[in-house]
């Protein structure tokens, strides 16, 4: 491969994965261009994490191919950084030691590691916490360290699995802006899993909507908002329009995930019946 060409291209083609009898993902094709920010959105259990884990190298496809820079993925590697939904910092390592971990695995010397980790931590505004243990940090800070740790080894691709799902709205916003800053600075490819529509729009260049299990790609939408993104953009007409379309697509799938198409029509009716029943019980 030509070293001058941009790296970090992800190609998922006809990807399918079965866990024994259950088909988690049936046929997913998507791609992320070098330096692109792409989100995956869909109802719970549709296989978003499964796709991400396959790109990370934790799962081997039972159908189709998963390629990163034209090479089939064979096991995890520091080329593909990952941020998990659950906090995954090593509790026995300080913030700085957590960030140094990947560099240590690469065989980088102690002083060089320290310097690199310090630089990264101060970029993320965490320099004051370098000697803290994860237990002493708030949820937002833990996830911030998680992102810095994943970026420390200079991966081509960053994979994030609902990283901000457990954070409050305010912290979430700050984290999204930080993530965009880091992404723009490092020019790496990002594949981001979320179930938050606004988050997907605010962050992404493109968004894939995944159907209810077994997952397939239902739609692919391009976000027309300019870069750099700013918080005020959520009030623009483009944003509103996109949000409306996504809401509709996801609503269909969420209802399908909970039952079937019939439930989609009778859902409201069932709600009214329930209200009647509760009213009757009160009498």
């Amino acid at each position, binding site marked *: 491969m030509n070293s001058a060409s941009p790296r970090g291209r992800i190609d998922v083609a006809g990807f399918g994965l079965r866990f024994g009898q259950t088909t988690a993902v049936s046929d997913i094709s998507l791609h992320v261009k070098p330096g692109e920010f792409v989100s995956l959105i869909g109802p719970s259990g549709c296989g978003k994490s499964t796709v991400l884990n396959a790109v*990370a190298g*934790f799962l081997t496809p039972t159908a189709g191919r998963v390629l990163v820079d034209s090479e089939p993925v064979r*096991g*995890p*590697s*520091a080329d*593909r*950084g*990952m941020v*998990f939904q*659950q906090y*995954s910092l*090593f*509790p*026995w*390592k300080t913030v700085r030691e957590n960030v140094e*971990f*990947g560099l240590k*695995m*690469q065989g980088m010397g102690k002083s060089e590691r320290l310097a690199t980790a310090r630089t990264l931590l101060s970029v993320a505004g965490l320099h004051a916490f370098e000697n803290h*243990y994860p*237990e*002493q940090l708030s949820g937002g800070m833990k996830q911030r360290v998680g992102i810095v*740790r*994943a970026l420390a*080894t200079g991966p081509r691709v960053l994979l994030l699995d609902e990283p901000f799902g457990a954070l409050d709205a305010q912290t979430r916003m700050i984290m999204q802006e930080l993530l965009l800053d880091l992404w723009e600075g490092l020019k790496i490819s990002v594949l981001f899993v979320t179930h938050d529509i606004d988050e997907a729009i605010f962050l992404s260049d493109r968004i894939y909507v995944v159907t209810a299990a077994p997952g397939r790609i239902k739609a692919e939408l391009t976000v027309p908002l300019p870069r750099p993104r700013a918080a005020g953009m959520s009030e623009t007409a483009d944003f509103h329009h996109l949000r409306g379309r996504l809401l509709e697509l996801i609503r269909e799938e969420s209802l399908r995930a909970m039952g079937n198409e019939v439930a989609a029509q009778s859902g409201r009716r069932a709600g009214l019946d329930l209200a009647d029943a509760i009213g009757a019980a009160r009498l």
Partner: protein
Amino acid sequence: MPDMVIEIGAPVAAPLAPAGSHRAAVRTALLRLRGPALGLLTIALALLAWDLLTTYRVSFHIRFLNVPTPASVLASASHAFSDPDFSYNLLISCRRIGTGFLAATALGVPLGLTMGRWRLLRDALLPLFEIVRPIPAIAWVPMSIMLWPSNEESIVFITFLGSFFPILLNTLMGMGQVDPVLVRAARCLGAKEVSIFREVLLPAVLPQVFTGLAVGMGVAWVSLIAAEMIAGQFGIGYFTWEAYSLVQYPDIVLGMVCIGALGLGSSALIRLVGWLVMPWGRLAGGRPK
């Protein structure tokens, strides 16, 4: 058992006294002292009871006729501690514990880690261990004497057996509780199998390892003393039993007290080491517990 430490009374939190409230401060200080004072009082009462029962040679089904008085024990202690033979007995016991316990740790912890990581090894070994484990180490005394060429080795082996299973099984249990996301995170960061063991699995199971070490140390002492009493030459267990045979009753109590002190000291040592190697585990309290 040296590893059973019962905390009597939770530490009393200082009530928020207004500044300069002298009486409140005194009250808090007194409340703080109440726990330790009560404990000391009970110990003093027990000593007093011992003294009275033995001085007046009480006998009511339980016979205190031959039980030595505290004073006679103290006298024999002052004699024993200037006797090189006695120190040698203590030293020998400590050496046996040290050897057996360290061997059990050196074998039990890595085996627990690998059995926890590789199912095949666990499936192969665990049933065998489950069969052997319920046999108390003391029951191994005759077999051990037959197996090992020297008495010394057979006693160390008994000590090893006693501590091996608690250490192994606690490590294995800890492995079952390691959050798999930590292993995945490490692999994503480029960690290979050896690094995963050293950097992730071992620190993750350290709390359970130290639980295993504390329990193992207790069982090691029980096994050692029994083995020394049955098969020993030298050692504090042997000393205690000899004292009975030679009708030197104060030495029995001296031996008992020494065994208790050594057990207490060794489990305190384990807690201290645990405190030192797990700095992340002492964020809230900041003191070994």
